[in-house]
């Protein structure tokens, strides 16, 4: 089975609201061009295309069909779509290269969160018979999770503010970030609650965005870029949706995915944690020690484009291999209410 490597990554600016349409075409066309130019590939060189998005975010059926227009898919292409974060589209593309069906793949994700009221839309991910009719909004559900950890003594409000302050400071180096800057933890703690015990800084901002990533077999990748980021492991798991049957202060699916990988020597990790306390849950689930740098991009607390944020974590983690600033990195993506579904990947320098 051929190894698979990331050879290029691009993302649209993480903005509060794009003037573009819900199908992402305006955000996708420029970044397709950017990533193809960077890898020296043309549309015809791509063996497989796969995307991740959500009809509910777009407020319409078949929203991904119009996104295909951004490709210019004629002559016809080999293409597929997951109704998930595009990190899982990457997983499907990874399979296609692993099984030897194609040598290259382009993966993209897009989401216009601003088209609706995001936390209300996400309530519709819950059980439609007994939970969703109560409209449990996603921020409040995360607040329950944060409260459980506070009461169990697993973290303090100051711990959470420190995550937020570090993320914003790191995001000053990320031109795509929506939120960045130097802030004092004490000032953050003076802010009012948004959904007790969560304050605004604990919550990823509503973000429109898109991301694109190019994969190639390791053999092909070596011809395309100097230092391909080889995916040395990729695993994903799901947990029960019933909030009352699992310990919300832990992430068993992340832990299980991490256990299936070799995490020794990971230098930095891009974690998809839309709430400050979730970063702490994920660090614990993956056993990431103090020596591992967390979210040097600023993470999704500084820009959380739905359905491409997980893919962007893989892209950010790959960039450190591509530019030679790290030898082994970790990327994580999440989906569903309060870290229900999780994907973990390790990326390394081609040996």
């Amino acid at each position, binding site marked *: *089975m051929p190894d698979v490597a990331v050879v290029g990554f691009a993302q649209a600016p993480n903005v509060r609201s794009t003037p573009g*349409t*819900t199908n992402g075409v305006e955000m996708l066309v420029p970044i397709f061009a950017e990533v193809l130019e960077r890898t020296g590939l043309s549309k015809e060189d791509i063996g497989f295309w796969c995307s991740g998005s*959500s*009809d*509910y975010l*777009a*407020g*319409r*059926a*078949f*929203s*991904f*069909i*119009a996104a*295909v*227009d951004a490709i*210019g*898919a*004629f*002559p*016809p*292409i*080999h*293409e*597929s*779509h*997951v*109704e*998930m974060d595009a990190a*899982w589209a990457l997983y*499907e593309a990874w*399979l*296609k290269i*692993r*099984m*030897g*069906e194609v040598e290259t793949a382009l993966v993209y994700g897009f989401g216009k969160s601003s088209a609706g009221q995001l936390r209300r839309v*996400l309530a*519709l*991910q*819950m059980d*439609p*018979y007994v*939970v*969703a009719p109560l409209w449990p909004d996603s921020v409040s559900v995360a607040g329950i999770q944060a409260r459980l950890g506070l009461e169990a003594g697993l973290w303090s409000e100051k711990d959470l503010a420190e995550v937020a302050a570090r993320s914003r400071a790191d995001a000053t180096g990320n031109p795509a970030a929506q939120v960045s800057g130097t802030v004092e933890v004490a000032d953050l703690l003076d802010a009012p609650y948004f959904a007790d015990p969560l304050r605004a800084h604990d919550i990823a901002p509503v973000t429109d965005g898109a991301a694109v990533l190019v994969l190639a077999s390791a053999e092909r990748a070596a011809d395309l870029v100097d230092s391909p980021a080889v995916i040395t492991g990729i695993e*994903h*798991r*799901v*947990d*029960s*949706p*019933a909030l009352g049957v699992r310990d919300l202060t832990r992430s*068993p699916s992340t832990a*299980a995915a991490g256990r299936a990988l070799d995490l020794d020597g990971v230098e930095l990790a891009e974690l998809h944690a839309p709430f400050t306390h979730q970063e702490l849950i994920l660090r614990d689930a993956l056993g990431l020690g103090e020596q591992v740098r967390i979210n040097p991009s600023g993470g999704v607390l500084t820009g959380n484009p739905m359905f491409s944020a997980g893919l962007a974590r893989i892209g950010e983690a790959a960039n450190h291999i591509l530019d030679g600033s790290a030898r082994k990195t970790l990327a994580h993506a999440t*989906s*569903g*209410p309060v870290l*229900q*579904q999780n994907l973990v990947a390790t990326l390394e320098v081609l040996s």
Partner: protein
Amino acid sequence: MKHLAAVLGTGQTHHKAKRTDVSMPGLLREAIDRAMLDAQTGWDDIDAVVLGKAPDLFEGVMMPELFLADSLGANGKPLLRVHTAGSVGGSTALVAASLVQAGVHKRVLTVAFEKQSESNAMWGLSILPPFQMPVGAGAGGYFAPHVRSYIRRSGAPDHIGAIVAAKDRRNGALNPYAHLRQSDITVESVQASQMLWDPIRYDETCPSSDGACAMVIGDEASGDAVSGGAAWIHATAMRTEPTTFAGRDQVNPQAGRDAAAALWRDAGIIDPLSEVDAAEIYVPFSWFEPMWLENLGFTDEGQGWKLTEAGETALGGRLPINPSGGVLSSNPIGASGMLRFSEAAKQVMGRAGDYQVDGARIALGHAYGGGSQFFSMWVVGSAKPGS
């Protein structure tokens, strides 16, 4: 390079316009439990779950695989959700197969469903996003001009569509799971039914069904262990083209022709008409049988209807098409493609009951979606590829 993969067992629900007796989890378990039993597989043997369905707006649940994780037996395992419009049931099966073909897993459960009665599919399809051409015609209104164009180009006589409808519905009467089971339907009765979108009559259209389909797909060792023989996956193909652009051939789309060419090449099939024993083709409106016969390369362009008229696509004919009754007999949209794939598998496993094609060794499963721009297909065989 690819690992061998095979269908170990299949299951489906009874299809009806409204399955008010079950919730979504209950509907899925009806298909899954039958597939697990048919595959003689226990939950501990399942390494991953792949779920497919058409738009979330059809049931009014955002990413239903998340709330279904419990009933899918997916907790603690990998779960993927595929969505490629009407071709999704086929694409979902192909993603499940690729998990085995890539050597990642030994046994994968895949399931596709649509519970259209939970919401209103026509409402789900009728939202008008800004800056896009409204269709506003329903699926029949969208496809009727393509059918008229086919008739004009091929010179097919008027009654071909009725032949297909009568054949598929009579086949459906042999299938205990089919939604419509009309053993007494005739070409004449189809022709006497209400005209909906000229030239498509009421009896030439698919029903709107609640239903689900599931399969267990396994590796070579698992396939070898299937008593009576597994359905070995010989080749798979998917292709996509944009919905609308000047000069697009919507009667005989390039994406379908390209997918079929790749499929036959990878399956080592030179003359599909003589080498394929049974075909389950996505025919939601009767005239799509001759159209897809040509698009798939079973006949030259303009010749597909002659095979239908000669009765060669009926059970006992040269190429039985939709022996299960097809989409014209049951159409739970998200599951319809997987039903075609699983019915093809049942044929080569010899498990198709009263609609079994005698001696079927090679079968085609085919799905398409959207405005005929997404195609997904596989060839399965009773023997391993190349043997």
